């Protein structure tokens, strides 16, 4: 699990995190949202010790990140960066994904199997002999994800994984997150994609100007217009429709098309088909 207590961090005196406290248990799927510059990426870089707290502490499975190396923490915490080019360097997609496994000393046959499995899952198998740098932005992003999943860390952190991904790829990413959840991993996703979160995440942590301004169920957080505004987000589109229809007795906290459809049919007196 991840335990963060009164975490403060600044870049050369420019404060980015101002007293963040947060607990995430195994098997949880959490979205971290907030405006540009809210401190989301800075926060998750503390999870594997890339950044160390200036005040407060971050503990990962009970280990204070100031007392462990990035290499030690990385074995259990996989961080998929926002810009895949910060992560990719190998000559082929296969080598890229196999790199960490080789580094951690896995036997050849395990490496083969794991890499094949993860490439197929992320729809990259046909590209395994290509150079990562010859791929599209969306494909490179998936290679970066594959290179982390291959070594099976307990905590997987995605920084803006839906950027540049089309609808089908987002659906696959959602399935992947469900699969990882079923393996009792911790999945933390930093994202602005309100629609993606409304459909797939049970819990949202809202950051604004370096502070946690809300932490709770997705329905409670994402349908609260005031909170959402403070974090520069928009309500999910279905919620926007619902709020426009409050005068017809439609509840203002709907998030899914199926819900609003039911509510509209009810307004029209056509029952709940």
């Amino acid at each position, binding site marked *: 699990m991840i335990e963060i207590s009164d975490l403060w961090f600044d*870049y050369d005196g420019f404060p980015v995190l101002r007293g963040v406290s947060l607990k995430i248990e195994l098997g949880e799927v959490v979205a971290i949202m907030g405006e540009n510059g809210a401190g989301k990426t800075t926060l998750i870089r503390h999870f594997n010790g890339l950044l160390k707290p200036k005040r407060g502490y971050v503990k990962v499975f009970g280990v204070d990140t100031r007392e462990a190396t990035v290499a030690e923490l990385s074995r259990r915490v996989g961080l998929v960066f926002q810009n895949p080019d910060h992560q990719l360097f190998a000559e082929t997609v296969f080598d890229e994904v196999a790199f960490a496994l080789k580094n951690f000393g896995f036997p050849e046959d395990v490496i083969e199997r794991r890499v094949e499995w993860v490439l197929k899952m992320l729809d990259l198998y046909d590209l395994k002999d290509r150079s990562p740098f010859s791929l599209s932005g969306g494909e490179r992003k998936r290679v970066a994800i594959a290179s982390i999943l291959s070594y099976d860390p307990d905590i997987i952190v995605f920084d803006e994984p839906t950027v540049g991904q089309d609808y089908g790829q987002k659906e696959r990413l959602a399935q992947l997150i469900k699969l990882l959840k079923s393996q009792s991993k911790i999945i933390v996703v930093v994202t602005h994609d309100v629609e993606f979160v409304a459909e797939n995440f049970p819990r949202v942590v809202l950051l604004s100007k370096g502070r946690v301004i809300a932490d709770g169920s997705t329905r409670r957080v994402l349908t609260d217009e005031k909170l959402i505004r403070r974090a520069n987000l928009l309500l999910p*589109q279905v919620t926007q429709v619902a709020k426009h229809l409050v005068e017809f007795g439609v509840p203002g906290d709907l998030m899914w098309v199926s819900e609003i459809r039911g509510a509209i049919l009810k307004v029209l007196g056509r029952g709940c088909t």
Partner: protein
Amino acid sequence: MPIIRVKGLSYRYPGSSRTVLKNITLNIDEGEYVVITGPSGCGKTTLCRCFNGLIPHFYGGNLEGEIIVNGFPVKETSTSTLAQYVGMVFQEPESQLFLLSVEREVAFGLENLGLPREEIVKRVDEALKLVGISHLRDRAPHELSGGEQQKVALAACIAMQPKILVLDEPTANLDPISAVNILNLLQSLRNKLGVTIILVEHRLEAVASVADRFIVMNDGMIVSDGDPRDVLSSTNIEGLGVGVPKVIQLYKDLKRRNVIFNLVPLTPKEVKACLMEVLEFD
């Protein structure tokens, strides 16, 4: 008047046997706000690279057909000439930023044009203000967040006052409010200055109501092209992996249950208006 004419365009990247654009014919009028969408790998980014001559001049490869941009045949026109008319903002702003301050970054292209100092100062101020990043002018671009960097890249582009702005998922890294602000800014550039906007985008919720025209591509071809309401509700694009906005999904769902709106809604407000009409009719 078309400012971009594309006729019979086919293209392969060098060393690749895959044809990524297949016989594309397309006119874009001056002052149009066009959204190009489609699944990853459909060729939309490649098509945009043809508009400013990166294809064929930088990428090489095998290009057939004709592309005329602002009267210039792209194949015979240098990228530096085209750059005076076509501004390009990419998905990853970092690849575009390299100077030590935001102000210098935005001024760079203007200095290269050899404009007088006062004009440069004026244009930089305006561009920073338009994009809403005046407060970042002395910061180093590489220290900024991804979203802030994207705004810097956009400001640098706007300062050049191009006739055509091509943007490849410019809001991908932005929080939703900043994204909406940028989309509205593009609309006002179009309305006030007649700039032609070509926007590649996956997230269609916010762009549906600002664009004049939607083009959906798949496998190197245009599969749907027209008014956003017609394109988004057409059956042509089902199953392509296009992220149809929730209001359109709702419209289709209701239609299947015999609740027919007389307009394909693009916004929550339009859903309400449609519903009220149905209620009155009942």
